[in-house]
């Protein structure tokens, strides 16, 4: 397979892994966001938590694998983004700390303060990472202040607080609303009674919020945010060297792909349609269809960010030629090919046994079930 094709495939595959993360880890993070509000008693909260008890750990690996794949396929992106967004990454990491211990330790001690503390820990672990990843995507669209020296050492010249600008915060809300909808739709499938009614209401509210904020962000990008264009000739098969190109900031550039490629507009359209469908199916009490709709919405929203910026991954606002693109931020031909092979072999296996695990554990989790299995469930 030639180098150009592999570079494009890896852009798609990183997208697939991020979407997989949003769908899978997203639904248990969304559970965390909703937990303190939809569970009014300890038993109710335990019922909510136990819908994901056997699965959160496997789901979290989507996140870890997406990180590993970015490291392996786009080492410069991994290096530059993680070190540049230092404090944002630390905040996401520390928020994630609350999840494994929150899940496993919460119900091991019968003390209301202890349990309530971990419930809020699960809330933090569910809410903070999606907000931060949304904010990070917002900042990618705006361009990030960094540059490389001759030896390709990157320096980030912005501050943590500069990341929290209005547009990026809006992107953070889009992300949080998307993940919470996903969590609510999942919980609709696995709960009943009062909890079900509460998560259904949440599903409707957050899907609506996602539609409004996503539309707002779209209008903002189309009218108020300059994009980036490569102004030198691009040889997609060249050895990756970001500094070999020239880049300019250009108003409306993030809309170019939608005029250039007819199919591109279907990505945001799918996002809107899927969010609407999620609302319709929630109203109709079709939890399964609502879940699949919000899953498609995750793909549509993440895909929209990717398609708008293509071929850029991480544009530099202070030294545009240092911008990272799908052509010049990538690993070697051999590594990309090898990683593709590994993905093709293992991804179907993962989907297979994950589905089996869900199938085994499927069913409504009730408060009665929790009471009867007090010592063996979370």
């Amino acid at each position, binding site marked *: 397979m030639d180098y150009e094709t592999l570079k494009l495939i890896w852009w798609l595959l990183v997208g697939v892994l991020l979407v997989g993360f949003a769908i899978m880890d997203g639904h248990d993070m969304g559970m965390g966001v909703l937990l303190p509000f939809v569970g009014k008693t300890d038993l109710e909260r335990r019922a909510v938590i136990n819908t994901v*008890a*056997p*699965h959160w750990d*496997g789901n*979290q*690996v989507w996140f*870890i*694998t997406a*990180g*590993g794949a970015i*490291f*392996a*396929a786009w*080492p410069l992106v*991994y*290096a530059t983004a*993680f070190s540049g967004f*230092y404090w944002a*990454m*630390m905040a996401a990491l*520390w928020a*994630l700390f609350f*999840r*494994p*211990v929150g*899940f496993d*330790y919460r119900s*091991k*001690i019968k003390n209301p303060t202890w349990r309530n503390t971990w419930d809020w820990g699960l809330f933090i672990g569910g809410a903070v990472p999606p907000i931060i990843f949304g904010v990070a995507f917002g900042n990618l669209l705006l361009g990030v202040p960094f540059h490389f020296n*001759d*030896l*390709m*050492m*990157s320096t980030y010249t912005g501050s943590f607080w500069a990341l929290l600008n209005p547009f990026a915060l809006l992107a953070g809300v889009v992300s949080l609303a998307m993940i919470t909808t996903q969590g609510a739709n999942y919980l609709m499938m696995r709960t009943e009674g009062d909890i079900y009614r509460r998560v259904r209401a949440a599903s409707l509210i957050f899907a609506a919020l996602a539609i409004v904020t996503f539309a707002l962000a779209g209008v903002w990008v189309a009218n108020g945010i300059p994009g980036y264009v490569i102004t030198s000739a691009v040889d997609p098969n060249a*050895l*990756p060297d970001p500094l070999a190109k020239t880049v300019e900031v250009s108003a409306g550039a993030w809309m170019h792909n939608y005029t250039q490629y007819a199919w591109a507009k279907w990505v945001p359209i799918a996002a809107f349609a899927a969010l609407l469908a999620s609302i319709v199916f929630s109203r109709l009490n079709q939890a399964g269809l609502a879940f699949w709709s919000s899953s498609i919405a995750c793909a549509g929203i993440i895909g929209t960010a990717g398609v708008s910026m293509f071929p850029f991954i991480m544009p530099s606002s202070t030294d545009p030629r240092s911008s990272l693109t799908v052509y010049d931020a990538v*690993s*070697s031909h*051999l*590594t990309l090919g*090898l*990683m593709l092979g*590994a*993905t093709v072999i*293992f*991804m179907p296996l*993962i989907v297979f*046994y*994950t589905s089996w695990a869900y199938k*085994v*554990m499927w*069913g409504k989790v*009730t408060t*009665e*079930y929790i*009471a*009867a299995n*007090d*010592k*063996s469930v979370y």
Partner: protein
Amino acid sequence: MLTEELVDLSRLQFAVTALYHFLFVPLTLGLAFILVIMELTYVITDRPIYKDMVRFWGRLFGINFALGVTTGITMEFQFGTNWAYYSHYVGDIFGAPLAIEGLMAFFLESTFIGLFFFGWDRLNKWQHFMVTVLMALGSNLSALWILIANGWMQNPVGAEFSFVTMRMEMTDFWAIVFNPDAQAKFVHTVSAGYVTASLFVLGISSWYLLKGRDLDFARRSFRIAAGFGFASALSVIVLGDESGYTVGEAQQTKMAAIEAMWETEPAPAAFTLFALPNQKAERNDYELQIPYVLGLIGTRSLTKELPGIKEIKEKNRARIESGIQAVVALEKLRKNRDDWAARSQFDLHKADLGFGLLLKKYTVDVSQATPEMIQKAVDDTIPKVAPLFWSFRIMVALGFAFLLLFSLALFYSVKGNFIEKKWLLRWAFWFIPMPWIAAELGWVVAEYGRQPWTIYGVLPTHLSVSNLTPANIYGSLAGFVGFYTVLLVVEMYLMTKYARQGPASLGTGKYHGEKASGGALPADAPAQKI
């Protein structure tokens, strides 16, 4: 600007978080297999006590695993956040095993651990057993890929530097996978994990036996731990010995430092049992040696020589001088790729590029390096001897102590009278923390012993860091120390609570401290139809 303060802080943060993560890894690796053995016994004999054993030790496994997962994410983030240049420079090689680890191993382990805990009522005996096997397999495969990545840092095979992309690029994936260094490390590390878990089970079971409670449960656990522990302790010594240290140059340097061997000795070299290393004078102020032993262990021969520190340093001096040429040529090439004179100069000295980069610690313009700078760089190539010398010796002494303890435990298990041997039970109980100490020292030997490199001979540590300010690292380090302290307190509290409670924590009504009837609902009750 990469100041020494920044580099030291970044290293400190990495060391703190890696050593902390490694408090939880060994127990996971080993306990998973002990659970497999117990559950296999259960499916074959059909005796419920073995199921209770799997569930009880499994619960302690879970408490430990939660922190393993928590602190593992830190490791993945940290290469990017704090070691950005490293990630760029070797990501093409180093990233691949990490990503494959996720795809092949971590998904497996994490998906099946959920079914392990929650699938008892929904899977038949054999299905559940398979789940446990896959979980154990996943955790050990995970260790394999991480150690392949780590082995490459010690012995960077199958890769080449490209001046266009300004990084190392993979040339031979299988050389990286079958790197002898990685293979030796894998066997040694997982065996150490098995020893840790065996001693954990052995020690806690001994405590029950000393208290005279849950005797049947504890006796069976003790026997399994004694058998598995004996095999593991043997493996960790036989397969983890210094034979791994002769495969690459990095390891030869490490070995010379571990042995405080300043001069190249005629083969076979003596093993230094005790010494007071004096790095400044490059000699030991006092030493006690056993002739021939080191040469035999290290080279498996009577005639092969092991280089001493002074000889290694002189070789390195030549490589640093050649490396200067490589760095100078590289900097020209980065400005103009078609500079053919620079190109041929670079090709000639390319192999020593990493050694030239060592001088970047002392001067931006390597071509202006003074003899004093070169001398400093040469001295840098040898890690500090005393901490390595002692870490290694304590680790080895502990290793033999484990072997002795498990031999006796196995011997009396076979004889069947270990319950009477109070001294043995006490020894096992008080020895519980020791494998952790040995494992942490092993990390120190392997990683501290690799200094001044992150990738031996390729990338110096001081160039590997992210270009941050020290204030950033002070802040994040404080955060890690704070979080990790609280988490450790919570974990230890739960671990002790459940270990003290013993199998009664399962609520089956059969164990010490439980009322024969009433009280908690039986946990084995079939799942309510829903």
